[in-house]
């Protein structure tokens, strides 16, 4: 798993996939102690453009060519998600640790194939769950892990945005909104642990084919989570609220702020305005600091990505745990499949005439995705209990979920 390079030597990094997100990774590669020595892409135009922008010396048209010609210590897989497994497996089989963009895969069969390749190559992969490492998220995680939040009881994530217009979005369950799901979902799952129940509602308010509004209710390990994604609400906010028995914190992932809310042991007349003043002060001081840091170049876009890449390289060099475990990354793919399965079933129920069954409408869920969802061994969907701070739940066997998929009423109610 670790390289034979000294801890001071720069890691030789290969970039597979030269689209927009590669331009976000590359500044952090050098900052984290890597040297991007080669890129590959099917398109020589985008590969050359990226190589020119970042002074990368070699360009290949296939990942196999790159792996055969270069001695790499790490690979970043930054292709569209349906191609992650095809690109990552050759690297993993050669024993090269691999960082894979989110979502790790679209179907669990791909995750299993990558895990098998990693075992064959005696190496590991990790997923780019970068939001988990944004500065305010690290503070929130620390507050939870240190017990300052008390018992975590509820998690709310809210994301309003528009889907990008990438060609490959048609490959994703849910289409455009499907691309918005992974970020809030991995944030939720980090705190929820294994999911015992899941309900989902999705629809298009304008009656279109594409889903534009999605709400998911999940019951995890002693806490619940609500995930909301809206493609119509304004402004485009991206927040995560963690409600604990001692404190509630709200992270604004657009503005990189975290607001702590707690009870004040003060007379009632002060207790009314004090929280607002406290919140205002927190926002003012953090915004000022962020602005100064941004102008000084200390922080830039996707700050969590830098921290995640640094931890990934630490894992490559020193054998420390990867920033996102295989179980954690796998769980996101599994739960995503469950969401679309529940959405499909809910739509079927909503559209069903009294006493009859109807074909699900609305979400674009391919048969391949649906199959991927129902053939998952349940153990794969559970994250490591040790990283959750809770106990492992007894989850439904796969057969139950398959049955739930065929029974809209069960899927909607969750049990």
């Amino acid at each position, binding site marked *: 798993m670790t390289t034979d390079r000294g801890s001071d030597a720069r890691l030789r990094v290969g970039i597979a996939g030269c689209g927009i997100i590669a331009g976000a990774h590359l500044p952090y590669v050098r900052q984290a102690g890597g040297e991007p020595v080669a890129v590959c892409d099917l398109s*020589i*135009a985008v590969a*050359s453009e990226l*190589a*020119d*922008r970042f*002074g990368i*010396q*070699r*360009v*290949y*048209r296939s990942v196999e*060519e790159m792996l*055969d*010609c270069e001695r790499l210590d790490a690979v970043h897989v930054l292709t569209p998600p349906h191609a992650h497994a095809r690109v990552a497996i050759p690297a993993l089989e050669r024993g090269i640790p691999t960082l894979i963009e989110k979502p790790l895969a679209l179907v669990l069969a791909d995750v299993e194939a990558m895990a098998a390749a990693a075992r064959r190559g005696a190496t590991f992969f990790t997923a780019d769950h970068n939001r988990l490492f944004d500065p305010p998220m690290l503070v929130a995680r620390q507050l939870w892990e240190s017990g300052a939040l008390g018992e975590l009881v509820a998690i709310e994530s809210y994301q309003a945005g528009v889907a990008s217009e990438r060609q490959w979005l048609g490959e994703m369950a849910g289409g455009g909104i499907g691309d918005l799901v992974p970020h809030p979902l991995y944030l939720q799952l980090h705190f929820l642990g294994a999911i015992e129940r899941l309900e989902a509602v999705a629809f298009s308010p304008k009656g279109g084919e594409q889903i534009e509004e999605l709400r998911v209710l999940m019951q995890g390990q002693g806490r619940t989570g609500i995930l909301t994604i809206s493609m119509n609400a304004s402004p485009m906010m991206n927040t995560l609220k963690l409600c604990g028995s001692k404190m509630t914190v709200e992270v604004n992932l657009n503005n990189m702020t975290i607001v702590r809310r707690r009870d004040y042991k003060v007379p009632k007349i002060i207790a009314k305005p004090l929280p607002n003043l406290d919140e205002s002060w927190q926002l003012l001081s953090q915004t000022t600091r962020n602005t100064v840091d941004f102008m000084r170049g200390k922080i830039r876009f996707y700050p969590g990505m830098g921290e995640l890449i640094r931890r990934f390289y630490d894992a490559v060099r020193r054998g420390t745990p990867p920033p996102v475990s295989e179980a954690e990354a796998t769980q996101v793919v599994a739960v995503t499949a469950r969401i679309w399965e529940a959405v499909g079933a809910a739509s079927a129920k909503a559209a069903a005439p009294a006493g009859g069954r109807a074909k699900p409408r609305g979400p674009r869920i391919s048969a391949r995705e649906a199959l991927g969802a129902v053939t998952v061994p349940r153990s794969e969907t559970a994250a490591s209990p040790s990283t959750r701070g809770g106990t492992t739940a007894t989850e439904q066997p796969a057969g139950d979920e398959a049955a739930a998929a065929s029974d809209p009423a069960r899927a909607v109610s969750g049990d």
Partner: protein
Amino acid sequence: MRAFVTGASGFLGSRVVQRLIARDDRVVALVRDEAAAGALELQGIEVVRGDLGDCEPWLPHAADCDVVYHVGARVATGGSWDEFFRVNVEGTQRLIDTALAGRAQRFVHVSSLGIFEIDRDGMEIGDESDYDRRPMLRGNYTRSKLDADRLACTAVRTGRNVVVVRPGVLYGYKPGRQNVFLGRVKKFLRPDLLAVVSSPDYRVPLTYVENAADAVVLAGTGAGVERGIFNVIDDPDLTQQSYFRTLSQVRPRPLRVVYLPVSLISPVVRAVDFAHQLARRRPWSVAYQLLRSERSARYSTEAARSRLGWTPGVDLRTSLQESLRSVA
């Protein structure tokens, strides 16, 4: 042997064609200019009329030859990046793919020596040295030549029969022109007084066009060089001072050269660069190119000499006399 030559009517390509004919190879020449095409046809050369930027019509001809000499390129001073990319980068890749998928046994790509990173004065540059890490500051032509070289070298690295030849600054006879090197940043103060922004010790990577043509043909015909990368300059240790001294001796009238330090004009150039950046008029930087002309590198030609068996057939004095014969 049937040889396909792009840029066949150009400065270097025309010399490559003459050598191939002298070898009794059957030459298929890609030519855009009608007058040049007619002249080649008069010599009995098979001519394919076509533009490097529109390769579809003539690619089948390239696929039907034993060796492809890709000498041509878009060499304009202006033009959009898309145009340079399409001709010099995408065109090169398509030509490599088509030729080697056809009957071609070897593909010779003529590149350039101006594509390397020179981060310190006096550094040694070999065939596998690093490319310029800021090619976008170099202008569209150099950037496109760097990108094309990188793809050609990838083909070499992945075991395809591609030979990359990188001549230095080419000079040689052109009718009616004083076609010799006169400094990277220069100004004639009088007809016999030249101001050069550089130092006398700057190593000038020059290749006489006839010597370069020898190397290109050796790359296409030499035994045991199915693939490789070769830097080709006549004298790796030639300094600017030594060069201008020889040039002065062979000119009809002696030439005096004054060397101006880069620092003298660098503030002005930086200000102009800054103004252009503000106006978003051009992405490249004259200051960066000026900085490069301050740092000289020593280019190793070891591989060309040992593997290709190339040596410069014409020495500096003779080549300069020949180059200046039309203005003598």
